[in-house]
């Protein structure tokens, strides 16, 4: 399964000039989109990246990062539904791992329970009219 996650990487000083990102791409077949990077010589480096790839590769990549000493922090994010865009089709219902979407059998409307959402991101691209949005 393909996952896409936004994470914050904190590089300790000793790692700042190592090509860690390169290894993530090359050795773990992950796609990276660097959203923000601040690497100052002799100071801790910080990078916000979007990582995309197979779940297993992602897990291995995270393990590699942790082992090299990079601290990983999940970006505080909030998945919200844009109600103007939602057509209540229901395509999200079976996609969400935490059952945050529910079909009302009477009204045939799809409710979204944000408190169940773990921000895995799966529904973002699975929603055909792209009604699910990521907010920071």
């Amino acid at each position, binding site marked *: *399964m*393909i996952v896409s996650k936004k994470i914050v990487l904190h590089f300790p000083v000793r790692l700042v000039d190592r090509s860690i990102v390169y290894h993530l791409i090359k050795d773990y077949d992950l*796609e990276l989109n660097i959203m923000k990077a601040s690497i100052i010589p002799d100071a801790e480096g910080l990078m916000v990246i979007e990582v*995309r790839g197979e779940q297993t590769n992602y897990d291995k990549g995270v393990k590699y990062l942790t082992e090299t000493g990079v601290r990983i922090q999940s970006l505080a994010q909030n998945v919200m539904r844009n109600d103007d865009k939602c*057509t*209540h*089709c*229901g*395509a*999200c*219902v*079976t*996609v969400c791992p935490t059952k945050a979407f529910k*079909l009302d*059998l009477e*009204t*045939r*409307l799809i409710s979204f329970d944000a408190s169940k959402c773990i921000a895995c991101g799966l529904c973002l*691209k*699975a929603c*055909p*009219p*792209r009604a699910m949005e990521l907010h920071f």
Partner: protein
Amino acid sequence: MSKTIEEINKKIKKGEAVVVNAEEIIEIAREKGIKKAARDVDVVTTGTFGPMCSSGAYFNIGHSNPRIKLGGGKAYLNDVNAYAGFAATDLLIGANALPDDDPRNKIYPGEFNYGGGHVIEDLVAGKDIRLSVTAYGTDCYPRKKLETLINIKDLNEAVLFNPRNAYQNYNAAINMSSKVIYTYMGILKPNMGNINFSTSGQLSPLLNDPYYRTIGIGTKIFLGGGIGYVAWNGTQHNPSAPRNEKGVPTRGSGTLALIGDLKQMNSYWLRGTSMMGYGATLTVGVGIPIPILSEEILEYTTVTDADIVAPVVDYSSDYPNMVSNTLAEVSYADLKSGKVEIDGKQVPTASLSSYSRAIIIADTLKDWIKNGRFLLTEPAELIPGIESGLNTKPMNERPIPD
């Protein structure tokens, strides 16, 4: 009992027509019986709102100064490929069209965030669209390059034309393989992880007129929030599909080609849609009124989700390889309950078409008719039925001689 469209129209004009939607009629007929219901009710309205890939729009952009000939050149609308094969100023865009530089499935599964369906939505919404054209230049059309914003209000004509919409019944999709697949039927999880379907079932236009007794060329309809017409039967129209004892096809069968003035439509009912790993498309709102001309026609409109059965088809191997194999038959009543049992396994189900929106379409059409805003039309010709023997053939692929 029999009525004519003319008689019904007279009642509509007087504001006396009895109009109900295809869900309400089920209860009415149960209470009153078919005979009385057929006498009392004049029109039953249907509706559907789902992704319909065979949709598109054509329009005329007017002549620039100096003139440019689009025909034979290349044209893009918001970077999405448009078809420039008609004359100097006519353009066609299909719902599945993509920008040349869209990565498609190179990064699998592709996202298809913006395509032809989105251009149509934006155009209808009144947004400016970037048009860029390269042409070869002629004596009478010397210009070779054009970059301009266009807006629907400035176009001479803007017409929605959908070669195949409103499928009468369709597959329910499942994945028998051990990896996730991305299809036009949505994301299908491995090992029968889910079933996706796309229909409004008992509200669906052609399921309420299964033998096409009233729907034909020129039938006036709700299309994309405005008024449209049935232009022809749709492509792959297959009246010869197997049917159950109530005449309801048990496989994909009838289809319609629809046409209408895009300028009076509404982006709420024409939605650019992205099917992950598959492509960009358009979700189209369609509603068709069924005139109750006889008891027989009324009886067809009482079809319920329990009467409509869909074939469960494997999209990991059978569908792509043209293996005609039905794993199970399930009713829409079961599919809509949220799970069905296949081979002893409870499989969660999801819909790609919105039933709640389909009801709104049927009710909007109902209001239009009740208020005398919408009269019914007599079709110029009905679409081909069973007697036509028409069916959908697979491709006859033949080598090209050297």
